[in-house]
Every structure is written in structure tokens, then in C-alpha cells.
């Protein structure tokens, strides 16, 4: 079974520029998550999708961050414009079965390391 794919692995941008990250979840996983992990901290959930609908985006800074999951498969996370404090690792994860129906199978990708200078 292929894992959760993320790209790029690394990205360096200047502040006020825009950047986009891509995630391809495990085939058949209905739920997709984006996390932000700042150095020295635990991962923080930014947004959760169920198929192509948003379940939870309460911690997404919507003035600069946006995310979409077209057709309920791949997802992109965008930052525009980036700030220095956005430097972090952005992790994508997917899970099945749909929420609330037991089981687990939460799988993380390797992440994208963003450096804003």
C-alpha cells in the first residue's frame, strides 16, 4: 500500500511570497488532515476534510491560509502572503474509515519543510 505522498519536501521563500503544498492521500481514505508543526512543538491541526467537504478549519489562519480538496482525493494547502512565523513542517495525513465509525489507520506523510526568510 502506497503511503501519503507530499511535495515538495523542502521550500524556501521570502516573506510576503506565496507557496503551495500538495498531498495525495492513501487510496480510499475519505478523511484528510493538514497539520503545522513548528520547531520544538507538537503538530497542530490546521484543517480536516471529509471527502471534499471541510469538517474542521477552526485553527486555520484564513486571512492567509487556504486549502482545497477537489474531487475528494488530492489536496493543496496555500499560504499567501507568507510570514516569518509560518516557517514550519507541514504534515498531511489521511485516515479511514470515516470519522465516528471506529478503527484507526491514521497515516502521515513525510511533510514539507517550509522556511520563510
Amino acid at each position, binding site marked *: 500500500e502506497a503511503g501519503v505522498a507530499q511535495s515538495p519536501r523542502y521550500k524556501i521563500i521570502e516573506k510576503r511570497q506565496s507557496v503551495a503544498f500538495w498531498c495525495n492521500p492513501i487510496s480510499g481514505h475519505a478523511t484528510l488532515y493538514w497539520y503545522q508543526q513548528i520547531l520544538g512543538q*507538537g503538530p497542530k491541526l490546521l484543517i*480536516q476534510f471529509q471527502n471534499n467537504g471541510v*469538517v*474542521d478549519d477552526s485553527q486555520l489562519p484564513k486571512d492567509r491560509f487556504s486549502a482545497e480538496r477537489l474531487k475528494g482525493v488530492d489536496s493543496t494547502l496555500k499560504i499567501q502572503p507568507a510570514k516569518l512565523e509560518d516557517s514550519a513542517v507541514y*504534515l498531511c495525513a489521511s485516515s479511514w474509515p*470515516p*470519522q465516528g465509525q471506529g478503527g484507526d489507520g491514521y497515516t502521515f506523510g513525510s511533510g514539507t519543510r517550509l522556511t520563510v526568510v
Partner: protein
Amino acid sequence: SQQGEEDPQALSIQEGENATMNCSYKTSINNLQWYRQNSGRGLVHLILIRSNEREKHSGRLRVTLDTSKKSSSLLITASRAADTASYFCATRNYNQGGKLIFGQGTELSVKP
């Protein structure tokens, strides 16, 4: 918001010693999971314990869960230098969206 608090924030031990990390959380859960993360690398799932379980073992790992105190501990026995990493607990509640909520982590250093 973070669900858990982990204690200690940093732990330094000698090879062969045991390492114990603690995690406290705030809301009800269906399961609690422990992950390891080497510096600059991805998250590695270590072990999952369900809310109706009190103790679980996997190799040199032992996890306990006390739902009345909303706390868990991870014990690594006979530690090795290769165990040097950050360790995170994460909780999951299927009635709250099923997302994993992480603590801030314990940084473990095992000296040869």
C-alpha cells in the same frame, strides 16, 4: 489547541536505563497513541491504546492509560542511543471529528 501536556519536556538518560514519559489530556477519548519523531524526520507510530485498555506492551515499550485521571505514560526499557528522539502523545475522539490532537512532546536524549 493542543490536547495534551507532556512531562517532562526533556529527558536525558544513559544507555540501558529506562525512560518514562507522561501525558495528560483534557477531554474524553476513544484511543491514545504515541509517536516518535527523529530530528527533522517524519512521525513514526509506536503504539495505540484504546480507552477500555489499561496497559499495552510492544517490544521494549509499555504504555498505561488511566482514563479517570486522563493520563498516560510511555515506558521505554533498556534504552539505546537510537531511541534519541522526540516523543508525542496524541488523542483521538471519534465523536469530535476523529482528528488526532497532539501534545507538545518530550525530547529524549540517550547517551552511549
